[in-house]
C-alpha cells in the first residue's frame, strides 16, 4: 500500500508559528493535522485582577494586525457590564477606525501573502518584479488603512487613543477631512485589485459550511451586531457561549472552536458575505458580481475576492463616515464600575472576536474569556484540508503541499491571536 506524507514544519506567509502534517495511505487521507506550536500567551490569566478599563489596551497586544478588533470587543464587553450606552458619534468613530483595520489587514493578506499562491510565486518580492503596479497599489492601500487608524487612534499598531466608553480625544475634523481624497482613490483601487484577482485560476472546491458572522439590520457588520448562523440561529452577543464552545486538542496550542453539538463552523469573509451580502453597497455588490462571486460563495479559495470586495466597501464606508464626521463631545462616556458580566463581539478581519468578562464591584476582572477567529476556524481548516486533499490526490507531492498551504492561507490564519490562551493544569504529588 502506498503511503504519502506531507510535512510542512513552519508555514510561511501566515502570522505566527504553525505546521501541517498529512498522511495518505492507499488513497485514503489518514491524518490531517494543522498544528499550532506558537507558545501560549496567557492573556486571559494576565487580565485577572486588572481594572476592567485596562482590558482594551491589554488585549490589543494579542495582535499587531487587528488590535482594533480586540479594543472594540473588550470595550463593548465592559460597557455592557457597566450599563454604558455610547453616543452615535462615538459609535461612528469606532466604525471608522475599524474600517482602517479592515483595509490594512485585508490588503496585506490578499495582495502580499495570499496572491503569490495563485501566481505560482514564492512571495510578494517576486510579484513586485512581475506586476509592480499591483504591489505599488497594495502598499498605498495599506498605508491608507494605517493612516486612518493613526488619525483616530494615535498610531496604527496598537492604537492609544481608544478607551472603554469611547476615545481619549476626538480627532480634529481637519485631520479626518484630509483623508477624503485618498479614500476616494481607495474605492476604485480596491475594485481594480478585486477584478485583477478574479482572473486567477481558482481550484474547484465547495465546502459544506456552517457560516457564522455578525448581522446588523442596517449595515454590513464590522464593529457591532447580533451573532447569526446559516443554520438559522440568530442570538444576542451574550448568548455566544450557550451555543459555541472551545475544546483542547493535543496537537494545537490554540483551543478549537465548535458549535455545542460538535459541528465545525467558519467565520471570516466568506461567512460575513454569505449572511450579509444584501447589506453591502450596490457598488461593492457589483464588484462581487463582476468577480464571479456567487451570492453565497462556498469556494474557500475565493475568499481573497471577498476580502477585496470588503476593502472596497470599507473604503466606501470610511468615506461616508469621514464626510459625516462630527467630533464626539464628550469623546467618551462616564463610567461607574459595578459588579457583573459583560460580553462584546466584533468582526475582526478574520471573523468574529468574542470577549466575556466577569467583573467585581471594584471594577476588577475576575475571569476573562476571549474567543478569537482563528481558534474558531481551526476545525474547519482541517476539514477543508481533508476535502481538498481527497479531490487533489492526482497532484504530485510538491503540488499537493502547495495546495494544502493555500487551503490554510485561505483563512488568513492569525496564529498569534489563536494562542492567546492555554489551559494549564499542574499536578503536584
Amino acid at each position, binding site marked *: 500500500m502506498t503511503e504519502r506524507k506531507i510535512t510542512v514544519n513552519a508555514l*510561511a*506567509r*501566515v*502570522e505566527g508559528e504553525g505546521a501541517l502534517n498529512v498522511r495518505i495511505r492507499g488513497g485514503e487521507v489518514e491524518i490531517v493535522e494543522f498544528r499550532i506550536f506558537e507558545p501560549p500567551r496567557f492573556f486571559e490569566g494576565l487580565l485577572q485582577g486588572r481594572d476592567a478599563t485596562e482590558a482594551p489596551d491589554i488585549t490589543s497586544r494579542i495582535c*499587531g*494586525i487587528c488590535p482594533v478588533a480586540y479594543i472594540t470587543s473588550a470595550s463593548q464587553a465592559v460597557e455592557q457590564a457597566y450599563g454604558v450606552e455610547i453616543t452615535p458619534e462615538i459609535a461612528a468613530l469606532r466604525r471608522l477606525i475599524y474600517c482602517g483595520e479592515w483595509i*490594512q489587514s485585508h490588503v*496585506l493578506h490578499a495582495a*502580499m*501573502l495570499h496572491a503569490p499562491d495563485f501566481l505560482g510565486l514564492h*512571495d*510578494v*518580492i517576486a510579484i*513586485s*518584479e512581475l506586476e*509592480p503596479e499591483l*504591489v*505599488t497599489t497594495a*502598499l498605498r492601500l*495599506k*498605508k491608507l488603512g*494605517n493612516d486612518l487608524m493613526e488619525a483616530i487612534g494615535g*498610531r*496604527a*499598531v496598537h492604537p492609544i487613543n481608544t478607551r472603554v466608553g469611547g476615545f481619549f480625544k476626538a480627532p480634529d475634523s481637519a485631520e479626518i477631512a484630509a483623508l477624503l481624497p485618498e479614500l476616494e482613490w481607495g474605492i476604485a483601487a480596491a475594485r481594480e485589485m478585486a477584478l485583477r484577482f478574479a482572473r486567477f485560476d481558482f481550484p474547484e472546491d465547495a465546502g459544506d459550511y456552517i457560516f457564522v458572522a455578525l448581522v446588523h439590520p442596517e449595515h454590513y457588520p464590522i464593529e457591532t451586531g447580533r451573532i447569526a448562523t446559516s443554520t438559522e440561529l440568530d442570538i444576542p452577543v451574550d448568548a455566544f457561549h450557550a451555543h459555541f464552545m472551545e475544546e483542547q486538542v493535543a496537537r494545537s496550542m490554540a483551543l478549537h472552536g465548535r458549535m455545542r453539538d460538535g459541528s465545525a463552523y467558519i467565520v471570516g469573509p466568506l461567512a460575513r458575505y454569505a449572511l450579509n451580502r444584501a447589506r453591502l453597497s450596490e457598488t461593492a455588490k457589483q464588484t462581487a458580481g463582476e468577480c464571479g462571486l456567487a451570492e453565497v460563495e462556498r469556494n474557500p479559495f475565493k475568499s481573497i475576492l471577498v476580502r477585496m470586495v470588503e476593502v472596497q466597501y470599507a473604503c466606501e464606508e470610511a468615506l461616508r463616515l469621514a464626510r459625516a464626521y462630527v467630533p464626539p463631545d464628550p469623546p467618551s462616556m462616564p463610567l461607574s464600575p459595578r459588579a457583573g458580566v459583560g460580553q462584546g463581539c466584533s468582526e475582526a478581519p478574520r471573523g468574529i472576536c468574542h470577549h466575556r468578562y466577569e467583573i467585581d464591584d471594584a471594577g476588577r476582572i475576575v475571569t476573562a474569556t476571549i474567543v478569537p477567529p482563528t481558534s474558531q476556524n481551526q476545525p474547519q481548516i482541517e476539514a477543508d484540508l481533508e476535502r481538498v486533499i481527497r479531490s487533489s490526490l492526482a497532484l504530485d507531492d510538491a503540488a499537493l503541499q502547495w495546495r494544502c498551504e493555500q487551503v490554510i492561507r485561505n483563512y488568513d490564519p492569525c496564529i498569534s491571536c489563536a494562542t492567546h490562551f492555554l489551559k494549564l493544569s499542574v499536578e503536584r504529588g
Partner: protein
Amino acid sequence: MAEGRLHVGIGNPLRRDDGVGPWVAQRLNQTGLRARIWQADGAGLIDLFDTEAALVLIDATRSGAPPGTLTRFDAMATPLPRPLFHNSTHEFGLAEVVEIARRLGRLPARLEVIGIEGADFTPGKGLSTTVRETARRLVSALREAT
C-alpha cells in the same frame, strides 16, 4: 529631500536585544545626528525611502552568529539576506521592504543596512552586555563617518 543622512533604529526595546536599533538611534540623536526610532508597520518604511536621499537602517539580527556580531550591507549593491532581517509581524520584515522597493525603483540614492546579532529576545528592557558593547562601537563609528 532632507539634509544629511537619516539613521533609523528599528525594533522593540521591550524585547531586550531587539531594541538595539532604537538604542543606537537614541544615542545618535543625543549627539545631534539625524536619527529616529521605527516601531511601526514594516511596510511603512518604504514611505521614508521616498522622502530621504540617504538612509542608514539599524536592526537586530537573529541568525545564529555570535551575539554582538555586526554586519553592514550596502543595500544599493547587495540584496539583503532575508533570513538575517526577517523577524517581523506578519512575514513583512526589513528584507522584504528593501527588496520590494528595489524592484519598484523606490530605493533612496544611498541605503546602508546594519545588523547587530542579538542574544536575548525575551520580554524585558535592557541590552545584553556584548550587544551593548557592539552598539557603543557602532555609535562611535557612525559619528566619525558623519
